């Protein structure tokens, strides 16, 4: 297991380099010179700021040298200063918000797993029945609905029309400090219901369809027939024999769903005014705050790598065939 972990960690190094190369290409997509655009952004940015930007990316140097200079800084997570004029470094800005986005996505993933998996298993067990077809249509509707549209509709209906839920933010700004611990938990939960529920609804399709396929395969295995022959109850066969084996490939899907979830945090965080990384990213895109955009692009990719690593390790932990195979 240790050997496998080390191997996987080493494999991340070329991935990291590749990620930085692609980010670097994106910087150079800017029409004309990135520094020129910076200068065009407004008169209040002085010549010294422009010189600083050129120096930061070494724009006067040859491409390879520019890249290596930039990579050296990125390696220690130094993305320079934000253009926003608040004097904060990019790393500081991301650091303040990263944990919110990660926590929200973990929460969403937990519920996607909790709801999507049983839906997939039931769908497989009652293959081609009305139940199977209804589940299929419902999870696909979740996938097909533009999330921002659903989010805005739910926000108006539940928060404004019915007044059941708070409209936006992460907690009630004025009252929060005076609340008891459980009051705070309840307050945050009320703020998170909509964003998390909509995010989960939108992502059920992937995992439940996958769970359905892998359960269908498992249900045809001989040991299931053997279990039936021994008179074990159907529910026990389904939820203890079949589910456990159908679970394995699902772990990989969870790993693969990370980039999508992180990406959609831009939408959720801007609709619900949640002060996370997605909101920062969107604001930076609108303000053309290039250092922050690059920083979040790199961090987002690193988060995905980390998520995939965890998924792979979990898979290897659960399935010794992976751990000891040569392919690793």
């Amino acid at each position: 297991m240790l050997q496998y972990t080390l191997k996987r960690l080493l494999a991340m190094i070329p991935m990291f380099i590749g990620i930085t190369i692609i980010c670097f290409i994106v910087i150079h997509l800017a029409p004309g010179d990135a520094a020129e655009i910076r200068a065009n952004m407004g008169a209040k940015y002085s010549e010294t700021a422009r010189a600083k930007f050129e120096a930061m990316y070494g724009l006067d140097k040859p491409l390879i040298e520019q890249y290596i200079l930039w990579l050296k800084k990125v390696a220690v997570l130094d993305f320079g200063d934000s253009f926003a004029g608040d004097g904060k470094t990019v790393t500081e800005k991301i650091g303040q918000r990263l944990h919110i986005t990660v926590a929200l996505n973990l929460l969403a993933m937990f519920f996607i797993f909790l709801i999507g998996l049983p839906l997939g298993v039931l769908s497989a067990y009652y293959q081609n029945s009305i139940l199977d077809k209804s589940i299929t249509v419902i999870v696909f509707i979740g996938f097909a609905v533009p999330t921002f549209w659903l989010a805005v509709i739910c926000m108006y209906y539940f928060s404004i029309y019915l007044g059941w839920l708070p409209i936006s933010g992460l907690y009630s700004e004025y009252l929060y400090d005076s609340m008891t611990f459980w009051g705070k938990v309840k307050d945050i939960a009320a703020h998170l219901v909509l964003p998390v529920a909509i995010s989960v609804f939108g992502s059920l399709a992937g995992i439940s369809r996958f769970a359905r396929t892998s359960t269908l395969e498992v249900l045809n295995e001989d040991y299931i027939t053997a279990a039936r022959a021994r008179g074990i109850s159907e529910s026990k066969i389904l939820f203890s024999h079949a589910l456990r084996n159908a679970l394995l490939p699902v772990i990989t899907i969870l790993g693969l769903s990370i980039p999508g979830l992180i990406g959609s945090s831009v939408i959720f965080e801007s609709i619900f005014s949640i002060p996370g990384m997605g909101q920062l990213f969107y604001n930076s895109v609108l303000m053309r705050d290039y250092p922050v955009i690059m920083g979040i692009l790199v961090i987002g990719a690193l988060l995905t790598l980390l998520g995939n690593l965890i998924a792979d390790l979990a898979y290897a932990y659960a399935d010794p065939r992976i751990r000891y195979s040569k392919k690793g």
Partner: protein
Amino acid sequence: MERNKLRSIIFSHINKNILLFFGLSIVLFFIIVAIFAPFIATYDPAVTNMQAIFLPPNATHYFGTDDIGRDVFSRVVYGTRISLFVGFIAVGISLIIGIILGLASGYYGGRVDSIIMRFTDIMLSFPTFFLILAVIAFLKPSLVNVMVVIGLTGWMGVARLVRAEVMSVKNREYITAAKLQGLSHKKIMFKHILPNVLSPIFVTATLSIAGAILLESSLSFLGLGVQPPTPSWGNILTDGQNNIINAWWLSCFPGLAIVFTALGYNLLGEGLRDLLDPKNKKENN
């Protein structure tokens, strides 16, 4: 064969694949709407009429009118063209890149394979939406840029799929025979291998079209998609968001159009996958 028997066979097939037929009907319906948009639309989608702003759906304006008196029905009809166009072109770009990289990777193997697959892995580790937003922030949002960027960031699944399929057919006898005949690599790849891996590619392409249409609408929501006045479902929907309380029809109809289309392509794709999967054939017949 007796007529009744034939009919019952057809119906049992439709019944078994009801979701597939449902998806297919939706897909065909919107393609027809897109093709015949000028004949279906009742007004010019760009013409404003200050005498008729915020009219609810009625006999002359089926889907009502918007804040500057444009006919929402006609805009949604013309938006079908743009949205499907974005979907098809973006997926076309992904398919071309994915097929070429996948074929090369699976066919040549070795170093070519490991370089291409590493590159694919790297692209897969970007949150796609971040990458698209970043690129559009550096360039400019426009119809062409949106299609190209969605296409350039969506080929990885196709490449992996094609590679796997190529690896499973490349050692078959007919390929060896083609090699012995001295055919060029290019000819073997495109004439002999590609046709045999088309059906799973077709399924993926169908599913991706839904994804591309949804992506365009999300970009429109953030103001970075197809730019008005060109109507796409995404930007009509986004325009309507601001008036969701007093004019529900502005966002309801384009939203439903997106939902039905995305659902249609998904059901079609999943249905085709079941139908084309040789494992299911025995049970179905």
